[in-house]
């Protein structure tokens, strides 16, 4: 049981650091997915521990949302790449004070 949670925490941290440090939008995106899956892992693990299905159902919901998010997100990244010839998140910094 503990191992699952620890693994989930490690995966989440990796994703988190990735989001904060990487500039390539695709990689940032993958890290976000990593964090979501770490959460899914934790949900499933806790569902098993508590012996009910709530966590598992939530995991399905997260997957659905993640899939939708990927569709939108990748489309945005594609568009940005087409216009700016770059997928760096730091380049797209026009919307500011």
């Amino acid at each position, binding site marked *: 049981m503990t191992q699952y949670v620890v693994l989930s925490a490690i995966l989440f941290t990796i994703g988190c650091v990735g*989001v904060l440090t990487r500039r390539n939008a695709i990689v940032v995106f993958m890290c976000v997915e990593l964090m979501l899956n770490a959460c899914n892992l934790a949900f499933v693990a806790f569902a098993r521990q508590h012996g009910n299905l709530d966590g598992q159902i939530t995991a399905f919901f997260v997957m659905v949302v993640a899939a939708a998010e990927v569709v939108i997100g990748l489309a945005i990244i594609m568009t940005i790449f087409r216009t700016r010839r770059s997928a760096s998140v*730091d380049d797209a910094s026009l919307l500011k*004070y």
Partner: protein
Amino acid sequence: MNLLSHSVLLPLAEGGASHAPVVAPDTAAGGVFDLLWLVIGLPLLGAFLLLGVAPFLRGSLKASVDKHGHLLGTATAVLSFVLSLVLFLSLLGRDAEERQVGQHLWTWFETGSLRVGMDLLYDPLAALFLLLITGVGSLIHVYAIGYMEHDPRRRRFFGYLNLFVAAMLTLILSANFVGLFLGWEGVGLASYLLIGFWQHKPSAAAAAKKAFVINRVGDIGLSLAIALMFATFGTTDFGGVSELAGEADQATLNALGLLLLLGACGKSAQVPLQAWLLDAMEGPTPVSALIHAATMVTAGVYLVVRSNFIYELTPVAQTAVVVVATVTLLWGAVLGCAKDDIKKALAGSTMSQIGYMMLAAGLGPVGYPFAIFHLLTHGFFKANMFLGAGSVMHGMNDDVDMRHYGALNKAMPVTFITFAMGYLAIIGFPGFSGFWSKDKIIESALADNLLVGLLALLGAGITAFYMTRLMLMTFFTSKRWEADVHPHESPKVMTVPLIVLAALSVLGGVLLLGDWIVTWLEPVTGHAEHHEPPLPAIVITLIITAVVALGVAAAWFLVGKREVPREAPQDVSFATRAARADLYGDAINDAVVVRPGVGLVGGLTAFDRGGVDGTVMGGAAALGGISTLLRRVQNGFVRSYALSLLGGALLVVLALLAVNLG
């Protein structure tokens, strides 16, 4: 001090038997008295047509109204006079107890326990005023037809005059203090409009403003008095207040009396609110005669006499009235001695004569009839002299400087003779109207308090001096005319009113025959026990006449026997310089009111800018600065947003943990 403590301080000390009669305006109206409202209504209609309708007319109709509007204005005044005469005769036919007629027109406003009606009260006091206002008013309307003949705005002038007459009649006829205040403000407005009638002259515009502003000070007194009446008695009807006044406590009554006096001081140009009257002479001369001599400025005297039910109960306020009056009668007389402007000399004299009326009004029931008597005779002879002065100016190309007159008795015989009648009346030449009225006032003052009486006597001497000076400089002595001036007699339309007024100036004394006016006013002012004067009446009369003769002789030797310089001499005594500068009335106002006021406003403005604005604007600026700093957080880098998101999430988690564990 010994003299003062005699009885001015406590005029009612002995007995207190003289209680003011209660005003009971519901004594059977009906008959001709139903037309009472029309006395006000006629001039009001005239004002409305001339001021409210005429400006919207077009074409030839407008031209004809502009050309003949003065006839309408005069007609309403004359009709109003005829009606007043009829009403007066009807009142004369009634018994003394039934001489108070009320007319309820409509309820003006009603809120809570407060109810103010448009009520009129016609009693012996109002009757006399009605005759004076509409009678002298009509004569002055007629005179103004000639005087304003070449003025392109004559229609408007007559509209204003009608407005004034309507407002003055409202003031006199109203049966409660709120209605009186309506008229009070109305005459103030008309006075303002008429002083500033020649608004292209900056001096006239300034004088109008000055009169308006100083009058506001007095009006504050009157409005506070009315508010105090509401609070104390719950009504402002003369009837209600006169009934309940006896139950109020002394402090309230004193406050009421003093506040009403403040109001009277503003309207009647009494010290310390006297400074506006001399400047008010900037208005056309008929205005000076009607408003600033015969009627409006006497409204203060009317107010004091009308409020006798309050003054009877407050010796403090009565003493204040006497003191103010005595100071003013000397103040005005001194001003009259030094002025070279004929209208300003007459204005100083008006101030002084109103001082006499106020003095009489301050003496209580003994004085009220004589205050009104002098008010009436003064209305006649002063209007006469003002119109005479206007006639002189008319012939002298509107020059007002008496040093440019001289020897006009041949050039303007009618003006001269009528003016002389007014002159003899005002100095108190035996037999003329002023002789009777002033004599009675000085006699009553002497009986009441020796010091006040002697000062009033001194005033009579000074009056004789300055009026003789005016007379000599204008009609006698050598010709000092400007080169292009050709004095001529004024047209009939101007001289006929002069003749009528001169006749009244001579004959005004008949009102005193058999103490008629005293008996007539008794239902209003109450019965007076007569104080015995310190000397027999005939001796006092002789003394007054002697003092007057002394004043005339002094003027003859100082002015008549000498060559009058065309320019006012500059190397004169301090007293003359002070009098020429209105006894520093403006300087005093400036030092006491204007400069502290300006300083206060300056201080408040600085506090507003620095303190209030500083706090508000400073706070806004501080918030703006912080916002500018915070704005930097929005730097456009997605990853820094993610970091703050993470930080926030961590904070939330930590907080949850702290709550759960703690």
